[in-house]
């Protein structure tokens, strides 16, 4: 076991009151020690992001998780706004931007479609990982290691039992990351981070 890591979950759901899956996922990791949940829509209902506060939060954590539903194959708008404003040149990237160097980054997304439709022959033509390329490359530009995403598919048809199972996996993954259970090697050659917990389950 390596050192403990601090996890920052940047959560964005503009209609959280209607959310079932993401509420269950978030509740599963809420209140965990060394896990900070930053609900962006709740904190910045008018998109007026407190950049200095966000930068400080980033510096205080080791793993950054963008947790949101998949909207138009990407994130809800506030995540983009957050990236535009917080990932500053000279702070997160650029010749003098080393603040995030060596941290881990990850996406935790939920999609309406099943995994089958996110294939070259499926209706969406591309895989979730392909759609997440901007996050991947942004993390890389910021000198972070981008981990495979934690994905919940079939949000519209998922059963309560499946939701609970999925929430438990999420909790397991997050606590595992926090407790330094995983090394970079564990994330190699897996499509989703779900696999780490699924194999253990």
């Amino acid at each position, binding site marked *: 076991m390596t050192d403990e890591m601090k996890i920052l979950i940047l959560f964005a759901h503009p209609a959280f009151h209607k959310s079932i899956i993401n509420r269950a996922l978030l509740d599963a990791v809420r209140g965990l020690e060394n896990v900070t949940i930053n609900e962006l829509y709740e904190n910045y209902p008018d998109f*007026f992001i407190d950049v200095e506060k966000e930068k400080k939060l980033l510096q205080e954590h080791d793993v950054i998780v963008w947790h949101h539903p998949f909207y138009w194959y990407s994130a809800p708008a506030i995540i983009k706004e957050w990236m535009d404003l917080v990932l*500053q040149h000279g702070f997160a990237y650029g010749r003098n931007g080393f603040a995030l160097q060596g941290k881990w980054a990850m996406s935790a997304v939920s999609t309406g479609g099943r995994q089958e439709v996110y294939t070259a022959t499926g209706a969406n033509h591309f895989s979730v990982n392909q759609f997440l390329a901007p996050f991947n490359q942004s993390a890389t530009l910021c000198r972070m290691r981008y981990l495979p995403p934690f994905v919940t598919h079939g949000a519209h048809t998922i059963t309560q039992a499946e939701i609970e199972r999925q929430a438990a996996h999420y909790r397991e993954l997050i606590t595992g990351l926090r407790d330094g259970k995983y090394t970079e090697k564990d994330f190699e050659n897996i499509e989703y981070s779900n696999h780490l917990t699924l194999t253990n389950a």
Partner: protein
Amino acid sequence: MHNQDFFLQALIYLGATVVSVPLAKKLGLGSVLGYLLAGILIGPFVLGLVGKEAGEVMHFAEFGVVLMLFIIGLELEPSLLWKMRRSIFGLGGLQVLITAIVITFVALAFKFQINRALAIGLIFALSSTAIVLQTLSEKGLMRNIAGKSAFSVLLFQDMAVIPILALLPLIATLGQPATLSESTLSKIGGMAQLPGWIQLLIIIGAIAAVVFIGRFMARYVFRLIAETGLHEVFVALALLMVIGIALGMDKLGLSPALGTFIAGVVLADSEYRHELETTIDPFKGLLLGLFFISVGAGINFNLLIQNPGMIFFFVLLLIVIKFIVLLILGRIFRLRKGFDFLFAFLLAQSSEFSFVLISFSKQNQLFDEKTSSMLLMIVTLSMAVSPLLLIFNDKAVTPIMARRYNKPEYDEMDEPENPVILAGFGRFGLVIGRMLLANNIKVTILDNNPTNVEVLRRYGFKLYFGDVTRPQMLEKAGIQKARMLILSMAEHDDALKVAKYVREKYPHVKILARAKDIFHTFEFYKLNVRSVQREMFDSANEMGATALTELGFSRYEAYRTARTFKHHENQITDELYEHWLEDHNRFIEETRRFSEQVSETLQAEKDYLIHESECAWDVDTLKEEALQKQQNTPSENDT
């Protein structure tokens, strides 16, 4: 009058004013009482600095009433006046009529002859325009329902002075076989000899002349003078017009006050209204003060010492009669819940016109020397007591009324378990209330303005009349089971009081508060009420953004700038609060409050940059770096 005499007099009057009035205000007695005390102080009985000429001064100072009515006229547009016709003629007319009749009968009971009794009735039916209006504006009651009603009555009384003046000589001959002597007739202003229809024509003609002058000529002349840019000429013109109208009316035997009032109304919608108002206002203030002082100086304490019991008895009797008539009429005219009492206390004194009417009656041999000085004494004392009556109303009657009317009358609460209590449903609360109701949130709304309550009930709002500062009222509104109390009322001190009480007694209730300014915000913070909204900040901030947009900022840029400014303001507020906590005992006078706030804010602002921080979308450092890279490795193709 020699120059020196004049200046000496001015010195005495002004000195007395400067000493007494602020003192009286500090003691919570109001300026009128201050002036009266100043008058008593310099009068023959105490310091003896002024003597017989006080009467003359009073006569001169009555012009202050004329100026006051002119200014009031300026604030009343004709349409507004038309709306008040019911209360002017109904309430005012009945008040004069009934009071005069009752007092006449009382006077008869005291063995006055019928004609004298009638004269006394008419004289005492009037109330003091000067005192009441001064009090109303000082206490901010001009827009209060009781204040408006009182004003209507005074307006009617001012008009009634004219026929009363005409009637007195006729009354004097009642029961006397002798016909009117020429000298009597000539004294009533030269109009009474004429046939009735001509009198009427003259009155109509005079009013028409005033309207014509105000409507067509005055504007033209004012513009001419204003264009010269000489302010003092404008002042002279304004005074000239008012004095001219007053003199003209006086010559015709009409009320100068009424004449200038009409002139004021006619000019109310002219573009020179504010300029006129500010020009005349200081003259009005000084003259009215002078008037009150001369009333005080005119109190004949020797007479008082000779018959103290009798005089006080009559003063009391007069006030009681007037009060009861006013109270009953007030109720008939739908003044309720303490407003009837305020209305009655406001008008329970006798009028400055009574001085004129009494001396006029004396000239007409209605009263002998002794009776008239007695009557003058009663008038004076009733005026002097008047501010005390209002203090009594504030301190003793209002609390009782508030308690009484918190007992359900029509304000039985049928849904006391609403989660939200909204206290104050004026301009501020209305917005909140509408938004909550539109989202199906049940709100119990409390407001202390009965007219508001009735109007809004008609639109289906569940609204209750009540004073939230009464704990019982809150309890009846269901504070025990409420989740939230929104203090949207404009009475800032009351809001604090309620917040404090609810914090202690019902700590589970979330409090949202409207604050006046930054210091008021701090008071709430101190009670651990953190959801405070400064009533002006956000709309001003929005307008600032609009200004930036109009000045060429893109709309989003202006929006961001305003948001940044607000964010920064919140930070500063928190910071200043810490300072404030450290030495909030420091005495901040109300007048210094604002400048204090500005200077503290600006000082704190120096430590911040209120511009968009370097997190913007287009960053200079990025460009620089890209350019340098290009120079170093021109062949490399960078993103």
